[in-house]
């Protein structure tokens, strides 16, 4: 797709309104927080929400746009978090290859994040070359395999035997808030541009009927690998931001349940639209938060029940429901 005017116009489309509204809310919260007008609670919730939107959108590129459900997505998220910690503690240590960065935690964050994203892309392209030849359930199962391999390697080497990899830096929650916001803006822009571009049309064709797409001239294999790689890079970005926020990673950073979170958010939101995963992640976050606050032990039972209800009552998710009931709202979903 030729960029330029068409792309600029794309951001004035109705499909981008929800993102603009959300970003505005997050910016207002950030500004109030920065100037000390509100405490840390609301910004904390906002950061959680940004995190959920971020990981849901990263998954959406491959799952919602291209129709490939990956249980291995948490691996890329984990690679992002792990690489940041590794960059902090090894590469940028006093004796590391990047020792000139030592003591500059924000520079390390940027370098570590980029390294993590690069590593995730490398892994995605390598693994994708094999597993993206599979379809449907076979692809999904193969990606579970990826998760188990990485979990095992991680338990052997990554945390060096301890349960927790810690990064030491001065914590400024206000700055972390704006780092999250920057991550979210980047994620939303990338997802949106993909959605409205020729690439996005190609992915949609693959999701709807891969054989027909190929015969119509879509280079299905290349598009799938590219989507997988971009999705991986975005997941790594959120892994990195997340480990920065919690100053390190736990072994559960690679847990399969995080992939399930991402999948569930996309399912609740509905596949195939730009705003579906965003709506899905907000609903999911509200449910998780509410159950954690008011029914702690029952949280995942309630979430599980809701997932079952969603899938059986409106399998096409919230976006699908809106599309079929209120067709004029279709433009707002994209």
């Amino acid at each position, binding site marked *: 797709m030729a960029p330029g005017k068409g792309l600029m116009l794309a951001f004035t489309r109705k499909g981008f309104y929800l993102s603009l509204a959300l970003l505005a809310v997050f910016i207002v919260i950030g500004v109030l927080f920065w100037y000390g007008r509100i405490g840390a609670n609301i910004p904390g919730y906002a950061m959680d929400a940004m995190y959920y939107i971020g990981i849901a959108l990263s998954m959406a590129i491959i799952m919602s746009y291209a129709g490939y459900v990956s249980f291995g997505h948490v691996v890329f998220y984990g690679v992002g978090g792990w690489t940041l910690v590794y960059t902090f503690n090894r590469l940028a240590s006093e004796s590391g290859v990047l020792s000139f960065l030592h003591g500059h935690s924000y520079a390390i964050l940027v370098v570590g994040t980029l390294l993590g994203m690069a590593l995730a892309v490398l892994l995605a392209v390598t693994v994708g070359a094999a597993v993206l030849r599979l379809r449907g359930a076979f692809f999904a199962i193969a990606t579970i395999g990826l998760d188990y391999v990485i979990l095992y390697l991680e338990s052997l080497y990554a945390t060096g035997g301890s349960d927790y990899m810690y990064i030491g830096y001065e914590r400024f929650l206000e700055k972390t808030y704006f780092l999250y916001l920057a991550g979210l803006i980047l994620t939303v822009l990338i997802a949106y541009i993909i959605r409205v571009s020729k690439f996005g049309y190609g992915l949609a*064709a693959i999701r709807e009927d891969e054989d027909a797409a190929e015969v119509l001239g879509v280079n299905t294999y290349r598009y799938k690998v590219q989507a997988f790689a971009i999705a991986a890079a975005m997941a790594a970005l959120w892994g990195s931001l997340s480990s920065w926020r919690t100053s390190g990673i736990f072994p559960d950073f690679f847990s399969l349940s995080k992939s399930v979170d991402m999948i569930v958010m996309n399912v609740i939101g509905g596949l195939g639209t730009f705003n579906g995963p965003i709506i899905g992640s907000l609903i999911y976050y509200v449910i998780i938060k509410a159950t954690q606050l008011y029914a702690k032990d029952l949280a995942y039972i309630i979430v599980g029940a809701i997932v079952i209800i969603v899938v059986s009552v409106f399998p096409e998710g919230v976006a699908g429901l809106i599309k079929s009931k209120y067709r004029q709202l279709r433009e707002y979903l994209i």
Partner: protein
Amino acid sequence: MAREILKVENITKRFGGLLALDHVSFYVNEGEILGLIGPNGAGKTTMFNVITGVYKPEEGRVYFKGRDITGMKPHSIARLGISRTHQIVKPFGDLTVLENTMIGALFGPRHDTITEDEAREIALSVLEFVGLRDKAEMPARLLNIQEKKRLELARALAQEPELLLLDEVLAGLNPSEVAKMIKLLRKVRDEKKITMIMIEHVMHAVMNLADRIVVLHFGRLIAQGTPEEVATNPEVVAAYLGDPEMALKFVKRLRR
């Protein structure tokens, strides 16, 4: 002097022990409509799948405008200018009719340079051409079968192909729909000047539309020639047309 746009040479395709295509050769001239007929299981759709790169033949070559395209990936072949419709329609159900057609335009031979706006324009004019303009914003899965067939055709036409492969576009349509579709195919030939190969069981249609006909039977090419020649060929009558009287009727209708 007519130019050969497509030539298949000695194509053999096996599925396990089944010989789906047995050393089949034929050609298509530019601007021509070639009918591909034969009983069910004769290998017609298999031949389309070989031409479009979905299947790799065990033997033989496919040449498009003199270029050997055997073994190329389907998307590369589509980008060279060969488009097809499917016997069992394959709409992108969740996308609108317009989006379906735009995808055709975006990934066709002009895929390198075409903009989204141009693709939309092409798609809209093609939808007008096939009579689906008023359904443009409708999700494709809500179309009826006749409309889905038209969408298949629209998506292929939006690619602006030089060669169009039509796999039973008339099947499943009622007589008035068949008449409409035949009219539409004539329009494709006369206005868009696109070369076509059509697989068809609706005999009066193919006898009327086709300049030449190729007959397959159990993977073998048993006859080729003008509709008259084919309809009066004893082997074709025995294998496929069945009733010699019927076959003659087609020819009579043709001469009228």
